């Protein structure tokens, strides 16, 4: 009984000191100061284990097709090289200030034995690391192409890379998805909730049911499913919502809501989720 009381007291003291430390603001969150060694180690292990765990059931397609690697190189150059650099080519200025600094993928490709892990990270991203999710920007086959190309990085010399990209067209980066799987039918509310995050809707709207959607830049979407009008002008039907989500600047010129390149499927999924907020 006495031991139990002492343990309980210790737990309370630990919780209180933890709370005090958090509220004191003493931990330095700046991007110029690396975590302390134990925290870094802990985060690194947690990240590695999470990636392994979540990627274990992904089936890896054949990745040695030269055409696949070729298209992967173009995609890598357009979307990845700015942060991760390429053989003999530095990352962009902004990427050098990131903490953690984006990994050199030649090493990652050599040390992570399972390509599904690269695929998982590319598709879903990693919270609070700067690594974005590409699920809503690239199709599965494109993600695998990038993985296929990254797999060649350890053996790719800077000269070979330079020669390879010499023939490529100028790359354009854009928020507009290149080719998202458009064949799938829209209207999946669960996927729509994820899409709300992936199109940054949460950075301007309060959205019930979505953690982190608490920013009143634009109107709250509470009970949007029962709303009679959208943007004050469109009768609130499913089709109108899809139209509004895809082209706000055309529907309401001058609106602060930007065109985000939302695909038809994604807009239908988002509309399905918003329809549940009644």
């Amino acid at each position, binding site marked *: 009984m006495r031991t139990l009381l002492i343990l309980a007291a210790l737990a309370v003291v630990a919780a209180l000191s933890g709370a005090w430390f958090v509220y004191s603001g003493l931990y330095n969150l700046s991007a110029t100061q690396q975590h302390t060694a134990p925290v870094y180690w802990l985060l690194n292990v947690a990240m590695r284990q999470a990636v392994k765990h979540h990627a274990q059931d992904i089936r890896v397609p054949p990745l040695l097709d030269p055409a696949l690697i070729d298209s992967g190189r173009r995609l890598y150059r357009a979307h990845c090289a700015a942060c991760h650099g390429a053989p003999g080519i530095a990352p962009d200025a902004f990427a050098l200030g990131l903490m953690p600094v984006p990994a050199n993928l030649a090493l990652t490709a050599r040390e992570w034995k399972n390509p599904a892990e690269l695929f998982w990270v590319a598709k879903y991203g990693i919270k609070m690391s700067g690594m974005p999710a590409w699920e809503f920007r690239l199709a599965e086959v494109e993600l695998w192409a990038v993985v296929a190309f990254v797999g060649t990085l350890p053996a790719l010399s800077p000269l070979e890379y330079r020669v390879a990209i010499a023939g490529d067209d100028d790359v354009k980066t854009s928020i507009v998805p290149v080719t998202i799987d458009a064949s799938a039918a829209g209207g999946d509310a669960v996927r729509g909730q994820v899409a709300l995050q992936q199109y940054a809707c949460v950075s*301007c709207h*309060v959205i019930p049911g979505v953690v982190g959607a608490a920013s*009143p*830049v*634009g*109107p*709250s979407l*509470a*009970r949007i499913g*029962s*709303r*009679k*009008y959208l943007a*004050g*002008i469109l009768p609130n039907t499913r089709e109108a919502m899809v139209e509004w989500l895809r082209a706000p600047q055309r529907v*309401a*010129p*001058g*609106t*602060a809501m930007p065109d985000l390149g939302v695909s038809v499927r994604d807009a239908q999924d988002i509309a399905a989720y918003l329809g549940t907020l009644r």
Partner: protein
Amino acid sequence: MTRAPAAWLQIALLGGLVLAGCGGPAAGPTDATARAARAEVQHGALALQRYGCGACHRIPGIAGADGVVGPPLVDMARRVYIRRGLANTPQNMVRWIRAPQAVAPLSAMPDMHVTPADAQAMAAYLHRSE
């Protein structure tokens, strides 16, 4: 070493004066301003009710204002935009309330012929700090 106690004394004295100022009866003008601001907010609540804004909008603090025709007017003090990229300032709020079609032609929000004073009070209510 000899200067330190004097400095402490000064701070203590200053602190005492500030405290006395807060608690004392000498704060006339700020009191009147606060009273006027409160009256304006109350006027705004009444105006929002009388013009029937609640038929289309949910407005926290206004009885019966739970409409879902237009967006809910929650947390308006923190909102960045009103409509069509119009920045959420008191002046713009008045402008929007008094002539919605001037900001967004075709808007479903009707021009309710709100008087300048009423619009100003409504804006004060919506922008009040809670």
